Structures are given as structure tokens and as C-alpha cells.
């Protein structure tokens, strides 16, 4: 999600899907958390301004604002007058890890639901996961 732009300036890129089961603001929250968790965003790094992200994605500033408010509430980002939004120094890895585990858990629920609906047994599913994990 990071791309190289210009000589030394990294710009974060987002992808949102208006047809997703998740709302736009949920997708934004998740992508920011993911970027922090995998090191693309570091403590102190700036996050796009509300308007510039909304404009880039053609989404409502209200959705971006909501995503940022929730991230602020969780202590993941901070906002100061004039400096904009940035990744909080007070961010605890654990607050992020929980989010990640939760995200993985939600995905797992979906996979399990599909498997069950289609008569796939737990051991088949385990085997499948094993193969995919090793291939990754």
C-alpha cells in the first residue's frame, strides 16, 4: 500500500470497495491499523488529511472523519491543531494486536460459515488452511 513518489516522499495509498459488506469508514480504519501493524506506518507518521483522503477515494469526509475519530478513541492516532493527524506515540502494540486478531477472527468466522454451509468438514478445512499457510 505504500508507493514511492518523488525523490524521498512516501505516500500512503488506500483501496476501498463501495460494494463491500463493511462500511467505508470500517475499511479505512482497518487499512490504517494494518499499515501500522506491518510497519508501513510508523509512530509519528502523518495520516492524510480528512479532505485529501475523501477526495482521493471519492468518499464522504464524514466517513473519513468517523474513521479517524474511532482511531483517536482507540489511542491509535492523535490529532493536533495545525499538524493534522498522525500515528500516536502512545499507541500500544497490544491495542493494535487485538484489532488484528479481531480482524483475523472475523475473516475466520466467514470462512467457517461458508465451509459449514457447504458441508466441508473441520479436518478438510484444517488441511486446506495448512496448505495455504505453507504456500503463502
Amino acid at each position, binding site marked *: 500500500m505504500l508507493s514511492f513518489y518523488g525523490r524521498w516522499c512516501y505516500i500512503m495509498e488506500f483501496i476501498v470497495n*463501495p*460494494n463491500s*459488506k463493511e*462500511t*467505508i*469508514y470500517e475499511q479505512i480504519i482497518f487499512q490504517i491499523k494494518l499499515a501500522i501493524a506491518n510497519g508501513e506506518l510508523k509512530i509519528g507518521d502523518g495520516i492524510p*488529511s*480528512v*479532505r*485529501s483522503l*475523501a*477526495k482521493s477515494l*471519492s*468518499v*464522504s*469526509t*464524514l*466517513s473519513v472523519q468517523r474513521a479517524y475519530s474511532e482511531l483517536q478513541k482507540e489511542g491509535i492516532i492523535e490529532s493536533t491543531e495545525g499538524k493534522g493527524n498522525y500515528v500516536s506515540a502512545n499507541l500500544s502494540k497490544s491495542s493494535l494486536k487485538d484489532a488484528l486478531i479481531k480482524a483475523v477472527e472475523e475473516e475466520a468466522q466467514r470462512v467457517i460459515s461458508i465451509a459449514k*454451509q457447504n458441508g466441508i468438514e473441520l479436518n478438510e478445512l484444517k488441511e486446506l488452511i495448512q496448505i495455504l499457510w505453507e504456500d503463502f
Partner: protein
Amino acid sequence: MTNALEVRNLTKVYNTGKGIRDISFELSKGTILGIIGLNGAGKTTMLNCLTGFLKYDSGEIQYDFNGERYNKATPTLLDNLGIVSSEYGYPDHFTAKTISHIMSSTYRAWDKKRFFEILAHLDLDKSLKTGKYSSGMKTKLAIAIALSHNAKILILDEATRGLDVKASSRVRELLYAHVSNGENSIILTSHIMGEIERMSDTVMLIEDGCVQFINNKDDLLYQHKIFQITSSQLMEMDKKEINKVKREDHALYVIAKDPKAFGDKYKLEAVSSSLDRVIEIILEGDTFQ
């Protein structure tokens, strides 16, 4: 107040019975409100009440500029509003230069430099007589004027009329730049749904003089996901689950009351949607009997 504008129970009814009734909404600072509705629904009537061009019967309009509140069409109000509409009235021999000269006496904060910068950006010749303007040029001029007197709120009624793709794109950039300070706001109406969908933060639908809904654009699209189904599938469904149904010759579309639950229950994926498809189904679809 974080609202640039608050409107409460605005009513203006003509002798014909047409007009607007009980319209209420808020415009947050730094946001873009897109207003959609059929011709004759009341959009222009409402905008004319907001700008003071039309006297309304009842209700309240409250603006907030820099912490000061205004509710009358005073010169100060008009200084702070940038208006673009289809009204166009300059003598044929005027050029953009002449108009700038006049505007400097009309507006307290007329910014001549910015005006000419915008004209250049929009490829409009400042020495061309307005009598020779195409409709696109008239639009460009109006937009340039609206953006050149430090207006806190832009009111744009069909403001991209006659603009080609390149010019529309430039205008869009200017409008985004205008609201990027978090203080300036825009109200725009358009029949070009793609434009409204792309630019708006909040979307309001006016039907028969009343507000049908007003919502965050993304929430609106999320809550009105469109599913494609067959008649036999429809027969299996509970009418309480369905908001609207629209029949095409060879396809059937529904908007569910709870799209997430609906999709999960019937194992359906929503089809790729757009604001105009959603509005079409809302306005022309039937409720499921």
C-alpha cells in the same frame, strides 16, 4: 457552531400550490452538500430562499460566518455567498476585465488576482466580449466570480452546465480546494448524478417540495444496496424485509431494509451500484405488496 448553515421548517408555497414545505437541514463547515431531485421538486425555490432572492413564508435560515450569525439577506450575507445559477445577465460588450472592475465595487473582498488566475486556469479569455460567450464560458465566468470574493458558502445550481470533461475536472479541483480549509462549504445541485456522487459528503433528495432523505453519501449507498433477484425468489421473501422493488423487462431489483442481513439470509451479493441507480429505484420502484 460547527454548522455553516441551519435551516428549520422552511416553507414557500406559490399560488399554484407548488413550492417547498417544512424543509430542515444543516450544512457542516468544510463539507459539500449535494441536492438532487426531479425538475420542479423545489431545489431552485429552496436555493433562492437561501440566497435571499425569494421571500419565504415561514421557517428559519441561520448562517454562521466567522462566529457571527446572519439570517437576513444583507449585503454582508451576499458578500459571504458565492452564487452560480443559470441566471446570466451581463451586457454583450462587457469583457471579464470589465466585470472584474464592477465586482471590485460590489464585493468587499474582491480578489482580482485570483479571479484572473481562475479564468486562465479555465482557459477563458479575459478580453473576449461576453456577448460572444458559449454556455460553457458563461458557466466558467460565474464560477470564477463565485470563487473570487472569499465566499464562505458556495451555492451552485447546475453549475457545470456546458462544461466539457476537462473543464469539469478543473472546476472540481477548484471546488475541493475551496473547502479544504475546513471552514468553507458548498451546496450544489446537479442532474449529473456521477458528479453528485463523487463530490458530495452529504446527499439530500427533495421530492415534491419535501426532504425525502438527507444522509452521509457513503451511508446512503451502503444502506441502499441493490440486489438482483428473480420473481420466484421474491415470492419466497418476507415483504417486511424489502424496501423497494423495481422491475425491468428482464430483471428484478430490490433494495432491502437491512442489506447485510438480507444478503446473508438469501446468500446474495449486492450488484455494483451507483447513486443514480439507487435514486431511480427509490423514486420509481414499488413497495412490495
